[in-house]
């Protein structure tokens, strides 16, 4: 049985459907991530789970028991707020002791557990400090320790790293994964950074306009997006408009206007004549050198439109014969650029039939 079962819940504010008929089931021990653009309802969904909002429709079950009508303080669910919400009038130790005291824990036990929690987040020497004396990263760790100290069934994290700089985010991302593994508590993590989502999660739910677009493990979400929104939101993607010419076990035959036939992997629920797009990741599109041409299922001529040197990789923008521009990503495995192509050079690009994902309109 799933730890948290979300059954068709909706929450509306005026005309805005903040959460619109969402169903999810989250397993015990999972690091589950909600990702989506600003205003898509991530915070509202967390607030519904925490008990700060009641759903207009649908229900939530924790360990099989309905949460309806149970106030936030009675739910074994804790939240790490985006602002951290550390109590400014309490020291680090007092902040962390708060949930234990509320639960009526004996005072020597409180002391022991607080020390343990501080150890866990590497803040043992900051016990007596007050929140305003800590750095952003330290505050975040206090908030984590406070939310974890009395072992909730579920920890909700609402963009806990939004206030930190990029370097620190990366470091803390690592720490967060280790922490989750160490405590074994189920995390529901909200972010609008897709890289973060891919890096930390066991499973990801992509949200858009109050709805769940797709749920899956990171490589599934990235590799097999189910629709254009997911393909576009997670990572970078080339979308080539195509029409299906033939579909069978062997694969898909598509036609792109001005380019010709494209071979693709088998896809379900397609019909001849259907229109859609072929979604290709930039790293799946190769700029071909002479002999590679034979090995590629699909290859097309184009010219280098522009390129972006990023150090580890170079992104080439190639204008195909039909005018569409396709991005190709090349790893710079030796110093300098992997392929010294200049703007205007005639090139050939190609990809294997398994590379792309066909998405119907």
């Amino acid at each position, binding site marked *: 049985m799933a730890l948290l079962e979300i059954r068709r819940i909706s929450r509306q504010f005026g005309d805005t459907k903040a959460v619109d008929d969402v169903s999810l089931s989250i397993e015990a021990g999972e690091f589950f991530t909600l990702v989506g653009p600003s205003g898509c309802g991530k915070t509202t969904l967390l607030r519904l789970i925490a008990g700060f909002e009641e759903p207009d429709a649908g229900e939530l079950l924790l360990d099989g028991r309905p949460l309806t009508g149970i106030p936030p*303080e009675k739910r074994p669910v*804790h939240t790490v707020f985006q602002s951290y*919400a550390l*109590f400014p009038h309490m020291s680090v130790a007092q902040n962390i002791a708060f949930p234990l005291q*509320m639960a009526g824990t004996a005072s020597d036990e409180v002391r022991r557990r607080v020390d343990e929690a501080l150890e866990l987040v590497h803040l043992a020497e900051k016990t007596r400090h007050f929140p305003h004396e800590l750095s952003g990263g330290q505050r975040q760790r206090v908030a984590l320790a*406070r939310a974890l100290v009395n072992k909730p069934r579920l920890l909700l994290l609402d963009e806990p790293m939004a206030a930190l700089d990029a370097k620190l985010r990366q470091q803390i991302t690592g720490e967060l994964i280790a922490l989750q593994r160490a405590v074994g508590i189920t995390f529901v993590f909200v972010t609008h950074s897709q890289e973060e989502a891919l890096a930390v999660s066991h499973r990801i739910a992509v949200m858009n306009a109050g709805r769940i677009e797709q749920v899956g493990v990171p490589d599934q979400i990235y590799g097999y997006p189910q629709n254009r929104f997911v393909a576009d939101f997670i990572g970078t993607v080339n979308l080539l408009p195509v029409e299906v010419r033939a579909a069978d076990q062997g694969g898909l035959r598509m036609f792109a206007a001005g380019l010709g036939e494209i071979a693709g992997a088998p896809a379900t629920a397609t019909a001849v004549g259907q229109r859609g797009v072929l979604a290709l990741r930039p790293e799946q599109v190769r700029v071909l050198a002479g002999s590679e041409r034979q090995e590629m299922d699909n290859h097309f001529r184009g010219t280098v439109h522009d390129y972006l040197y990023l150090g580890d990789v170079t992104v080439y923008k190639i204008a195909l014969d039909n005018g569409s521009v396709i991005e190709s990503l090349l790893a710079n495995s030796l110093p300098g650029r992997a392929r010294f192509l200049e703007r205007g050079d005639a090139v050939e690009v190609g990809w294997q039939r398994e590379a792309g994902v066909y998405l119907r309109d």
Partner: protein
Amino acid sequence: MRRGNVWLWTAALAVYAFLYLPLAVVVIFSFNDSLLNAAWVGFTTRWYTTLFEDADMLRAGGNSLFIAFSAAGVATVLGTMAGIALQRWQSGVLRCLPFLVLTPVAMPEILLGVSLLLFFRQVLDLTLGLVSILIAHITFSIGFVAIVVRVRLAGLDASLFEAARDLGAGPWQTFRRVTLPLILPGVLAGFLMSFTLSIDDFVITVFVAGVGVTTLPLQIYSMIKVAVSPEVNAVSTLLMALTLTLIAAASKLAPDALKAKP
């Protein structure tokens, strides 16, 4: 530039002189060894001694302190609750509530005095005295406390209160452990302001005091109807010192609250 500065300084000095010279005169003459407020004769503290031997004055002072303490206490409790309510319900119909609590703050005192008198006499048929004064003072103080508390709350991160609930604190524990400690400076400032307002109040008190009970401002007024005795100077000086101390304390506790508009 230089010239402008000179003018500015002159203007400022004039304003301060205008404000504080009359007060300074009262203070100086309270130490003057003469029955007449005319010329400096010599230093004395005997007017203060007289003051503390004057039974009427002492009774009035006692009344004033009692009323100020009780009215400020009750107004602080009610005003704090009102302030929290104002901060929490800011949408829909309830949005006009702030205005309603704050009306007594903005209403001319004489109007409030008259309406309270009518209310006590015609509606409640209450005998005027300590109780009526107390109720009147509570009435005009609540709004001030509510403003200060609300301003203080508005400056706090709303997720603090949600965090408390989230971490297992019920509504009452959230109030006691998180809300109250955080708004305490505002609450204390509200108490001090109410106290000052109450102990200084004349206009409203005149209307609702009735015949038996007198407060310090009423007592002073009845004494200067005869003549401005040095004893009045002395009691005014003490009152002034108390008020200034309280205002200074209040503005130290909640600097933004006292400046901000409702």
